[in-house]
């Protein structure tokens, strides 16, 4: 998970240590962050997630659940 968290930290502009499931995505979760996260998930998991599903995510945990659901799909 560390590669994914490191990437998310860069996208959300926070320290990697701050990235945990309960972290709220907040105001920085804009269209550029979503595109960057699509690329990150593609890089780390070789999965392409729908942008509107990412846009609905409110926390890091929501993003992880989305990835897990796609992996199981």
């Amino acid at each position, binding site marked *: 998970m560390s590669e994914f968290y490191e990437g998310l930290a860069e996208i959300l502009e926070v320290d990697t240590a701050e990235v945990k499931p309960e972290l709220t995505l907040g105001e920085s979760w804009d269209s550029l962050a979503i595109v960057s996260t699509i690329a990150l998930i593609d*890089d780390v998991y070789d999965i392409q997630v729908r942008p509107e599903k990412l846009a609905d995510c409110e926390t890091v945990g929501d993003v992880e659940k989305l990835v897990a659901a796609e992996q199981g799909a």
Partner: protein
Amino acid sequence: MHGKTGQQAQTRGARIAGVVSALPPKVIENDSFVERFGDGVAEVTKMTGVKSRHVAEDGVATSDLCFAAGQRLLEGLGWEPESVDGIIFISQSPDYPLPATACLLQQRFGMRTTTVAFDVNLGCSAYPYGLWLAMSLIQTGALNRVLIAVGDINTRANDPLDRSVAMLFGDCGAVTALEAGDENDVAHFLLGTDGRGGDNLIVPASRHRDRTGDERFAGRNLDMVYMDGAEIFNFTLKAVPALVRETIELAGVPQEDYASFLFHQANTFMLNHLAKKAKLPKDKVPINMDRYGNTSSATIPLVMTTDVADLLKSGRQRIAMFGFGVGYSWGSASLEIGPLKVCETVIAS
């Protein structure tokens, strides 16, 4: 024959003789957006990689840029306009809804009235499509010399307040000369389409289909381009790496024998990601959009006449090219190009 990623096609007996791109003189740097978008400028620049772009002044149409490029090209090749048998204009921003811009260019270049001239409406995939079309026409023996004019004046369809497009696009026109070659001039193509993506990159204004009540475009000027960047990115992630792989397989030339991989200059972040995913060496994937932005149909020839011009003038090179986007439409080509007598960028006066 259709493969996994597109219709497979092969042409024999046609080659590129030269290519010239023409840019409008006016350059707009990112600084000029700071007042409008504040910190957003840095964020968007980090993603798109565009630092400046050439912008057409009022009154300049796409055909003006293509005419400037074509004039220099014909002069450089020493081709009389009467010796050209066909001109194909491929663009999303023709001079008029009608007549075809290719007809206007035929007259302007002083080409024969026995010239074949027509427009094709494609953007990001225009160049591979144009090469396939022109090379096929030459292969039939019907035409000997053909010009492909591609270009777009994108900036006039940019909503100035929409940061997803206002800072991304630039204007350019480019003309490529093709002529009959010999049996060693073989080109492979893959061409594909998925119209389900039509609404994700669109100018919705239409005299024929009223989209004014459409929630997707609510509050927007329908004459301006609408782009769902995240959807487009998602599409390219699914489509392009597979297209790259299949193109290399189809041509049967080892990846390391390619001198350069020319991608439609869509977005720098996207191109870096695609190159990495397709396992292409970064130094063989030129990106020039820091200087010119995304010029739609003209991006691939503009890379040819800028970052790889010396390479294409120096000798015969194995090149692959990939165009993908609006439509959705995509196309790729694998062919040998060069040594080109003319391969340059001019400023249209």
